[in-house]
């Protein structure tokens, strides 16, 4: 008697879930899964042999190096975003309504500015005759520090552009933290540092993880910033993919490079999930 209504309620509940998911699933299947599957198939369909492109990627000492560089620079970008984004997110989450609006306005003004405009602005600011090097010159460091057309330039550009993707999820999680928990920790004798590390950090960890995953993933596909602010060594895989599409029209090789980038990302996500429980980010707790 008791189990029947509960069961049917569960059934109704899951039918509703499926119905709600359907439109999204259709869009995802049509706009993402099918094209990605097509891309992977294309990468194996060369008349010279299914694995020919992958062999080239493995043998020629360019592609794996560039892949490694793409992953490394993206990881450092994500770490820098966390470092710089954490205090901003904290202020944002715990600010007065006016303070919130001002901080959000600052974030969104830069967020809404065109990517190329921001890249060219960085070139002006960071070049050897630019304002930063002039300032460094006043303390006698002007010529020794190169801020652009090298990896430093890429990291500065990438971090600035991707910072909002760290701040927003982090602030969202932080604003849900119950402030009385910190007071409780203090009243039980924890020092402010201890309360912060043992209570606050674990509570906002999921927001930080979400930010890291977002920034890292978005950074992997960049090529405007590395192309404009980087040096000869600062190639991203996306630049090589673009070259193979638009300069040599080798679409199946470009597909193979894309597949490798996708596979590397999925493997890293899987590792991250095993060691750091990235999956809980999406669970919300």
């Amino acid at each position, binding site marked *: 008697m008791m189990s029947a209504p509960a069961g049917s309620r569960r059934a109704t509940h899951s039918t509703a879930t499926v119905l709600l998911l359907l439109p999204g699933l259709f869009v995802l299947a049509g*706009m*993402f899964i099918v*094209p*990605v599957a097509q*891309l992977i198939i294309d990468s194996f369909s060369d008349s010279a042999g299914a694995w020919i492109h992958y062999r080239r990627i493995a043998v*020629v*000492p*360019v592609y794996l*190096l*560039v892949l490694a*560089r793409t992953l490394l620079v993206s990881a450092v970008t994500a770490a820098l975003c966390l470092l710089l984004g954490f205090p901003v997110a904290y202020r944002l989450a715990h600010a007065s309504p006016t303070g919130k609006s001002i901080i959000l306005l600052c974030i969104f003004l830069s967020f809404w500015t065109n*990517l*190329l405009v921001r890249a*060219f602005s960085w*070139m002006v600011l960071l*070049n*050897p*005759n630019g304002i930063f090097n002039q300032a460094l010159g006043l303390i006698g460091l002007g010529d020794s520090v190169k801020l652009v*057309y090298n990896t430093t330039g890429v990291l500065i550009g990438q971090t600035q552009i991707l910072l909002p993707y760290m701040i927003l999820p982090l602030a969202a999680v932080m604003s849900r933290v119950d402030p009385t928990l910190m007071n409780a920790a203090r009243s039980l004798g924890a020092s402010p540092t201890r309360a912060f590390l043992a209570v606050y950090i674990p509570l906002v960890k999921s927001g930080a993880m979400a930010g890291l995953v977002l920034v890292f993933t978005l950074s992997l*596909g960049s*090529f*405007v910033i590395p*192309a*404009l602010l980087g040096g*000869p*060594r600062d*190639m991203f895989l*996306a630049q*090589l993919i*673009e*070259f*193979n*599409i*638009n*300069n*040599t*029209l*080798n*679409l199946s090789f470009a597909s193979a490079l894309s597949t490798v980038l996708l596979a590397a990302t999925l493997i890293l996500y899987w590792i991250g999930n095993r060691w750091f429980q990235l999956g809980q980010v999406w669970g919300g707790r």
Partner: protein
Amino acid sequence: MRQAARNGRLALNRRRILLGGAALGGALAMPSIVRAANEEIVFATWGGSWEEAMRTAWFDPFTAKTGIKVKTISGNTYGKIEAMVKAGRTEWDVVETLPDFQWVGAEKGLLEPIDFSVVDKSLVMPGEDMVTTYSIPQVLFAEVLTYNTKLDPPPQGWTDLYDIKAFPGNRVFDGDDVQATLESAALADGVAPASLYPLDVDRALKKLETIRDQAMFFETNAQGEQFMSDGQAIMGMLPDGRAINIRNNGAPVQIQYNATIMTWSTMVIIKGAPNLTAAQKFLAYTLTPEAQAAIAMAYTYGPVVPKALDLIPPERAKILTGGPEMKGKAILRGEKWWSQNLAAATEKFNAWKLG
């Protein structure tokens, strides 16, 4: 033009990456626009100020003469052309491209043959591969050695670009023009222009290695102009129109025409073009001396039809690609060799950059 091509490409691909290909898919899925037959052609262009120049020099006079309107589309990338033809939905008639596409596109079956009973190819300047079954040349452009006027004596050619003892300082290279970078290195290393192709890529890279710490590669022409204008670099290669442009704007630069690598842009008709006959007529029109002179007056690219130079005032001809200043000095790029070797050479070049 190439600047516009590059910027267009950056924008297009950034968008494509962000949308995961949705933009392209969407564009192809759109029903083709119903057009009145023979009333217009669709011309896919690099866009920008170059498109405006073509509008006044070519499109409007052509429409006035034949009644055929010219509609333009920006974003003339190879990937889009292939996708369009493969989907059986060709919406463009004429596309301007770099010359490698006259072979790459033909090999992939993406092009319609040119009807040479309509298009008079005898007008075109002599030059290997400038006209093929599937393409005609559009205009000439070049990479030239540009140097800061404080250099005294000035550099005499590509050799000096690689001589860091005589000319200490940074050099700029067109990062998107792997061809010119490697060619300049080979020429500087003593390869005779006549035996430049097949290009010895390894030898060129060895020469580049000698100036690794002085080499700056620009991604957009605006960047290259900036490096030369503010003195971050003392010399380097720039597209000729760009070098003239900054010189006119007061930058302390001069051009050494002894070091000129010239090439051309090309026009092709896409397989299954909806307005094939009109497209052939349009191509024929662009090769008339009048049309070639008109475009050379509107933009600094040079005419591919020598007779056009007779219609251009001498002071204008002086600054044009392939004009009297470059006569006997410019090397015409071996585009056919590059169409087969660009991928492999770029792979080696990238490996060198990473090394």
